C-alpha cells in the first residue's frame, strides 16, 4: 500500500513556484530571492514530480490520440484527434481560417479578455466595498444582506434572457452576466473576510486610540485582504464560466461565440482550439490574480514560507 508516512517538519502551505519543502528554518532576507528560487527549482527537478507530470500529460494525449485516431472507438470517432487539432492550430494556412497565424484568433481572445476584465473590475469595485461594509457594520448587513441572499441562489446564467431584454445592444448583456457571477463571489468572500477578523485586533486598535474610521482602514481592510483575494480568484474563474454561456447564446466575437459558431459550421478542430485557448487564458488570468495577491500581501507570503505560526 502506498506510503503514508506523514512528514512533520515544515509541511506548511507552499507559495509560488514548486513545492517549498524547505525545512530550513531561517529563510531570512539575507538569502536573496533568486537563490531561494534556484534552490527550490533544483529541489523540484530532483524529485519525481516533473516526470510524473509529463507522464500524466503523455497518458492524457495518448488516450485522446488512441481512442480517436488509432482505435476510432464508436463515440470518439466524431471528435477531432490531437493531430488534427494541433496541425490546424499551428498551420500558417488553416483549413477553417483560424490558427495562431490568423489575426481573427487573437481578436476573439482579446474580446473575451476585455469582457472578463471589464466585468471583473466592475465586480471588484462594487463587491469589495459592499463586502467590507457588510462585514463591518451589523446594521448595514441586517438590511442589505437579506436582499443579497434573496437574489444569490438564482444562477447568473438564468439571467441570460432577461439580460438580453434589459440591456441595449449585444455587448452589455454579456458584460452584465459576467459581472453578476463575479459580483456574488467577490462580495461574499470580502464579507466573510471582514467578519473573520479576530475581534482582538479591532479591540487593540481601539485601545491604541484609533477612531472607528481608522480601525476600518488599518484593521478591517488589511485583515480581510487574504479573503478578498480568495474571492477575486474565484470571481475570475466564475466570470469565465458565465462569459462563455453569454457569448454562446448571442454575441459576436469572443471564445464562447467561436466555440458555438464552429459547432454550427461543423468545424470541430476550431471548436477544440477555442476550448483549449479558453482553458489556457482562464488559467493565466486566475494565476495573475493569485500572483498579484501574493505580491500585495507580503506579510502572508513570508509568514507561510516558514510554515506559519499559529
Amino acid at each position, binding site marked *: 500500500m502506498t506510503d503514508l508516512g506523514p512528514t512533520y517538519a515544515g509541511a506548511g502551505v507552499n507559495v509560488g513556484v514548486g513545492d517549498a519543502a524547505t525545512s530550513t528554518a531561517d529563510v531570512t532576507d539575507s538569502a536573496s530571492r533568486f537563490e531561494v528560487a534556484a534552490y527550490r527549482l533544483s529541489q523540484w527537478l530532483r524529485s519525481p514530480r516533473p516526470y510524473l507530470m509529463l507522464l500524466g500529460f503523455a497518458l492524457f494525449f495518448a488516450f485522446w490520440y488512441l481512442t480517436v485516431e488509432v482505435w476510432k472507438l464508436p463515440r470518439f470517432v466524431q471528435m477531432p484527434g490531437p493531430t488534427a487539432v494541433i496541425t490546424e492550430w499551428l498551420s500558417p494556412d488553416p483549413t477553417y481560417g483560424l490558427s495562431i497565424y490568423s489575426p481573427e484568433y487573437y481578436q476573439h481572445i482579446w474580446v473575451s479578455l476585455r469582457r472578463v476584465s471589464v466585468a471583473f473590475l466592475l465586480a471588484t469595485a462594487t463587491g469589495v466595498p459592499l463586502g467590507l461594509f457588510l462585514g463591518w457594520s451589523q446594521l448595514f448587513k441586517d438590511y442589505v444582506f437579506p436582499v443579497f441572499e434573496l437574489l444569490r441562489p438564482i444562477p447568473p446564467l438564468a439571467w441570460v434572457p432577461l439580460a438580453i431584454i434589459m440591456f441595449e445592444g449585444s455587448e452589455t448583456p454579456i458584460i452584465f452576466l459576467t459581472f453578476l457571477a463575479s459580483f456574488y463571489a467577490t462580495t461574499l468572500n470580502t464579507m466573510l473576510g471582514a467578519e473573520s477578523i479576530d475581534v482582538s485586533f479591532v*479591540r487593540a486598535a481601539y485601545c491604541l*486610540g484609533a477612531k472607528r474610521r481608522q480601525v476600518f482602514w488599518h484593521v478591517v481592510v488589511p*485583515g480581510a485582504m487574504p479573503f478578498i483575494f480568495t474571492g477575486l480568484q474565484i470571481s475570475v474563474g466564475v466570470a469565465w464560466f458565465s462569459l462563455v454561456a453569454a457569448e454562446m447564446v448571442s454575441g459576436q466575437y469572443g471564445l464562447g461565440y467561436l466555440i458555438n459558431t464552429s459547432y454550427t459550421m461543423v468545424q470541430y478542430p476550431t471548436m477544440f482550439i477555442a476550448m483549449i485557448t479558453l482553458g489556457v487564458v482562464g488559467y493565466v488570468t486566475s494565476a495573475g490574480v493569485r500572483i498579484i495577491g501574493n505580491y500585495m500581501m507580503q506579510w*502572508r507570503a513570508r509568514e507561510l514560507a516558514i510554515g506559519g505560526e499559529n
Partner: protein
Amino acid sequence: MSPQPAPGYDRSITTPVEPASLMTETSRKGEIRIEDVVKVYGSEAAGIRAVDKCTFDVPAGKITVVVGPSGCGKTTLLNAIAGFHSITSGTIYLDDELLCGTARPRADPGPDRIVVFQNGALFPWKTIIENVAFGPIVQGRMTRKQALDKARTMLAEAGLRNLESNYPGEISSGMRRRVEIARALMNDPKVLLLDEPYRALDSLTKSVMHEALLETFDKNQVTIFFITHDLEEAIFLGHRVVIMTTRPCRPKKVLTIDIPHPRDYSVLTAKRFREYLDETVEAVHEEALKAFAAGERER
C-alpha cells in the same frame, strides 16, 4: 525557536536604571477603584451572571494580579475596564474619573488603558516598527517620523533592534509579547491590562517573559492589572494578589506580597514565597473544584 536572550540584560546590577526618557508625562497615578460591579450576560432572569458585587482596588504604580479558576469572569472584568464590555451595575473609577457605571454602562476604550491580549494582537500585516508606532500616529500625537524614531528607541531598549522590518508572523511568540508591550508603552498608558499573556508559552519562555516584564515595570512604574490562573506566576509578579471565587466572581482573598521589587528568579525558592503559596493554594484549589464541578467550559 529559542528566544535569544536580550543583549545587555544583566540581572546582577542591583541599582535600578533611571528611565529618563519615559517619565516625561506628569506623574500619572493610574489607580483603579472597582465598587460593587455586577455583570450579567443576556436578560436579567435567564442570563449568565459573570461578576457579582465585585469590589477591590488596583493601587497606582503597582502590579495587581487577579487569580481565579478559568471562566470565572476575570476577563469580563478586564474587558469592562478596557471598555469592550458594559457592566450591569456598580462603578469603576480610574484616578477618580468615572470609567463606567449605571449611567454609562460601557467605558470608552482609550490609550490610557491598553490591553495585551491572550493570543497576542500585533497587526500581522504591519511590520514590527509600524505596529509599535501605530498608537501615536493614529491619535495624531506625533508625526509619522517622530513616532518611528521613538519606536526605534523603544525596540532597541527592549532588545528587539534587528527585527524592525520583520512581520509578526516571522518572529517567535515570546518576542511578539514583548513587542506588544512595547507598543502599549509607546502611548504612556496609565494602566496596562494583561489578559493571561503568557498562557500559550512554554515554561522556559514564560520565566524569561516574567523577568522582562518586571524589568519593564521597574523602568516605567506603570499600573499593571494582570489576569492569570497560575498561582506561582501571580505571587512572583504581583505586589497585590486578588484571588477570585468561581463564577460569578467576587474577590475571595486579597493578599499584599511584600517581597521587595525588583525581584528575580531567586525569589521562587525564598521561604517567604512558599508561605504565601501555602496560604493561597488552598483557597484557589477550593474554587477550582467548584468550577470543575460546574463543568464550566473555559470561555
